[in-house]
């Protein structure tokens, strides 16, 4: 009984046409390559309509502001979080191995497009300035040292470095002394209260602007670019 029913349904399926049509496409953005010229330069004739699986959507152009995220239902029933406005992200200080949720202050540099800097658009690979306070607080509690020495007041230094500590705390701090050094470029940024970071997530896809704090060669590279841009 069973096998014969299966046989009948499979022979029917051959006659179904698989229709993936552009009726479902509200905008005209498609990701096909049939509209492009071939490698030889020949213009390809259009022989079918746009298909839904080749669709493209408007870009998110995430700006700075109160969090606004729209959900987009995508192929397979899954959802993409399209961030339209963001103000904070989870940034990690690589060499120290800590991440903190921080406010994003401004976009400083974008390798692809200066327009995105002017309009403060958050995209992957954008160099931004973030609020330094969570990281400073962590550093001071971890190493009992002050960051941004030049600008810190005497009273502050006193408070952080000479706060009363228990014996076990002092032992821990002594052990961490060796790795407590921070690069001078970073130190200056801490003094100003703003760190340079780069976004490494895709805000228009995941709805988050996460990234890492720029350090070392990468930091020097981008600082040079930002400086030369200003002039």
């Amino acid at each position: 009984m069973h096998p014969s029913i299966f046989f009948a349904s499979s022979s029917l399926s051959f006659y179904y046409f698989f229709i993936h049509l552009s009726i479902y496409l509200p905008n005209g953005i498609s990701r096909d390559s049939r509209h492009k010229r071939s490698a030889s330069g020949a213009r390809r004739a259009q022989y079918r309509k746009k298909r839904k699986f080749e669709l493209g959507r408007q870009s998110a152009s995430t700006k700075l502001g109160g969090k606004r995220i729209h959900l987009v239902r995508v192929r397979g029933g899954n959802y993409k979080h399209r961030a339209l406005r963001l103000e904070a992200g989870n940034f990690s200080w690589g060499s120290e191995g800590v991440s903190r949720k921080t406010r994003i202050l401004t976009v400083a540099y974008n390798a692809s497009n200066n327009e995105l800097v002017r309009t403060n658009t958050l995209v992957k690979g954008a160099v931004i300035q973030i609020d330094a306070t969570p990281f400073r607080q962590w550093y001071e509690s971890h190493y009992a040292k002050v960051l941004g020495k030049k600008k810190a007041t005497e009273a502050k230094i006193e408070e952080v470095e000479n706060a009363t500590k228990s014996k076990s705390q002092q032992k821990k701090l002594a052990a961490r002394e060796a790795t407590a050094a921070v690069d001078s470029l970073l130190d200056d940024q801490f003094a100003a209260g703003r760190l340079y970071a780069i976004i490494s997530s895709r805000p228009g896809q995941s709805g988050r602007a996460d990234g890492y704090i720029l350090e070392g060669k990468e930091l020097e590279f981008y600082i040079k670019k930002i400086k030369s841009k200003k002039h």
Partner: protein
Amino acid sequence: MSEQIEKAFQKQAGIFQNSKVSSKNKRWYKEVGLGFKTPKEAKFGSYIDKKCPFVGEVNIQGRILTGVVNSTKMKRTIIVRRDYLHYVPKYNRYEKRHTNIAAHISPAFDNINVEAGDIVTIGQCRPLTKTVRFNVLKVQKAKTASKSFSKF
């Protein structure tokens, strides 16, 4: 240093450069498999190329082909010409045909100075650009070096 030509900082994606613990320039490379030797320049050089099969994020899968280099005028890519004979049954004879394949050539092969006429082995990878789906794996210079004098 000299490889930071672009507007964005060029680096290998997976390696963390700012570790406090060790400060030697870390470089990641891989063996492409199938018996191809990864060139010394790839292991110890300083170039960054995300499309290089040894030092970048592409894998060699599918076909491995060989051909003759036709042109090297593009940045980091070459055209490889493969000649073959096509049989025409009516006349019981063959005709010459050729295909041009665009292949990405890694800066690992920069010091070899690839020129038109060299034999090259290319391996299939995922689409890298509109026409490039292959990556150069091995270069074999042509019999006589073109511009220098060979010994008699």
